[in-house]
């Protein structure tokens, strides 16, 4: 999935280079540069995107609904804790999912392996996606909070979205106590 709304600058790349495994002993030295299978990389990124979305939505709902307070400094502090917490969770989720996802090499991209085999994405790529996930979650938490407080939060039945509808707007200052 290439949607930049989910991945910012770190959408799933195509033709991710892969260093092919060393050939078995006795086999003539072959080309060591291959590629990841694009569909497996895309699936890994999609999983990260949807998981991040789920994390943010759950974090927003928990932040607003799993409390008995209404808007005041304690809630603003809580909102920022959930904001940063969900961002860290999304960054970590990207790291773990991309690292452990069964991404595969493109079949026949390594001359000595004619079938796809399991390969871990390069760490630099994973780290880039994790950073993007962190930033994305920061923005997504803010936007989802805004939408739910300003739309659903108009009626008391919306619970915490109603009682705290002034956060993040107009109450956004984390340093006010």
């Amino acid at each position, binding site marked *: 999935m290439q949607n930049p709304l989910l991945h910012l600058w770190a959408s799933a790349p195509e033709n991710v280079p892969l260093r092919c495994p060393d050939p078995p002993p006795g086999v003539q030295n072959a080309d060591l540069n291959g590629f990841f299978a694009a569909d497996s990389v895309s699936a890994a990124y999609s999983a990260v995107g949807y998981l991040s979305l789920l994390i943010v939505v759950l974090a927003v709902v928990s932040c607003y609904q799993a409390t008995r*307070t*209404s*808007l*005041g400094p*304690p*809630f603003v502090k809580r909102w920022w804790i959930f904001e940063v917490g969900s961002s860290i969770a999304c960054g970590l989720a990207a790291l773990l999912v991309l690292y452990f996802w069964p991404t595969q090499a493109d079949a026949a991209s390594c001359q000595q392996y004619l079938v796809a085999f399991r390969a871990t994405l390069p760490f630099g790529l994973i780290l880039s996606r994790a950073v993007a996930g962190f930033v994305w979650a920061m923005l997504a938490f803010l936007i989802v909070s805004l939408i739910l407080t300003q739309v659903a939060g108009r009626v*008391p039945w919306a619970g915490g979205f109603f*009682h705290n509808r*002034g956060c993040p707007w*107009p109450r956004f200052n984390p340093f006010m106590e």
Partner: protein
Amino acid sequence: MPTDLTTYGPSSAGTLNFLAVGGSGIRTVVPLLHLCAAGLGPRKLHIVMVDPDVTNPATSNASGLIEQYQETRKLVGQHEAPHTYFRTDVTSRPVWSPIVDGTDKVGKSFADRVDRSLMDSLTSTAGTADLSTLCDLLFAAKYQRMDLSMGFRGVPPIGTVFMNRLREETFFKDLLNAASADANSVFFAAGSVFGGTGAAALPVIGRALVDGLPPTQSRARIDGVQSQRVGAALLLPFFTLPAGADKAPDGGPRPQAALFAQNAAAAIPTYVDGMSRYGALYVLGDDEPREQRVNAVGGKLQDNRPDYIELFAALAALDFACRGGAGGDRPVFFYTAVDSGKGAQRKSVSWPDLPLSDASVLRLKGAFVAAHTFLRLFRPNGNAQPDLSRLLKGVTWVDRLGMRSRDFDANAAALDRVGNYFMAMWKWLAELRTTQPPLELVRAGAQPLEVRPGETLDGMRTIGKVNDVFEIMRHWNEAAYSRTGTGQSSLWEVMRTGSERFVHSRLADAQGTTEE
């Protein structure tokens, strides 16, 4: 059945004219005002205080609180808010001293005030020897020397001499005239029947109100009020005095605690047989009277502590007003028994002991929660809150009321007044906790900031932990949503209904049943 003070019916929508008589009676003004501030009073309350001892702290405290209430009400703009805090329009007149007769007499003794020397001089010119002899016969020399500005000191006959001047007072004629114009108005007097001023004044006031004023050369007769519109709270000996010197500094008598019960027993028949004309009587007492700290004759030193009996007397006045009067040719009596135990087993008087309907209790509890919330957030311990507009920025109930948080800075004067008033209420509640038996309604033993939100009310526990005042404001948000009004005039109604919702849904009595 306890009266519901939250719903004054149309027949009881008139003015409650409250006559606070003597030191004990005047002390009931304070709880009466606090009940009005809590939204349990009638639409109009007119207070008349009667006491020769105008320097008594009870008088100055009551006068000060009346002024504070009036100023607060004016600033919070409650003229159009019929159901909420400070809803009662309170008016008053300066304390009426029966020993002041409008002449230039300077002496304060009984002899001076009745022109005893004039009686002597008239004896030789007009043959009025009988008058001076009669005066000496009825009033011993020690009574004639009494400084009356210190009160009547448990000697009702002295007070009765002066109390009949009430009938000549312009304000009393105005009261009767206003009563004929406002058929729903009621009159209620409160005072002790075991001391001096109250015992002397209560029968006179009842008769003067019901009998009206006879015609004179300058005016026609002024009709009295039907007896069912005139009630009284009779305070039986609810305190004693510590042993003191036999005589007062002026050589006159001191109030004798040993005679209190005897005085009360002698006075009761006057009320029982209807001679005092009251339609309804609320008789209040305590079987273990509390000893006052000092035995002061009167004046500034007579600074007695508040007592729960005074709150019950104020509740009696509101009960009578809410009923629109009661009784008839023969007085009806209202009884409420409070079992607070005896001796070492004596326990506190608390919420279940109040003779109030469930709705009235909820109103009162909500008011105390609102006051506490106010004293934690809006005016911490009664002091300024420079961050208030920032704290309330974006708050749902503020938004629903169409207000901006900076409006609270613009209305700082009104909030200051309310804060000061609520602090006065808090201190009164704190003092009541120190009496014997203590009246434990609010945990006011500490400053408001030291009492956790949700732990305001005595004998109540929270359902789930309440961490901050903003949890209480969830209920204010819902109250604001239910309202159509906006602006500051709706603020107090939101505060009231929201705080009552909080009490209803988040507090349970200590025994475990939820508040209903």
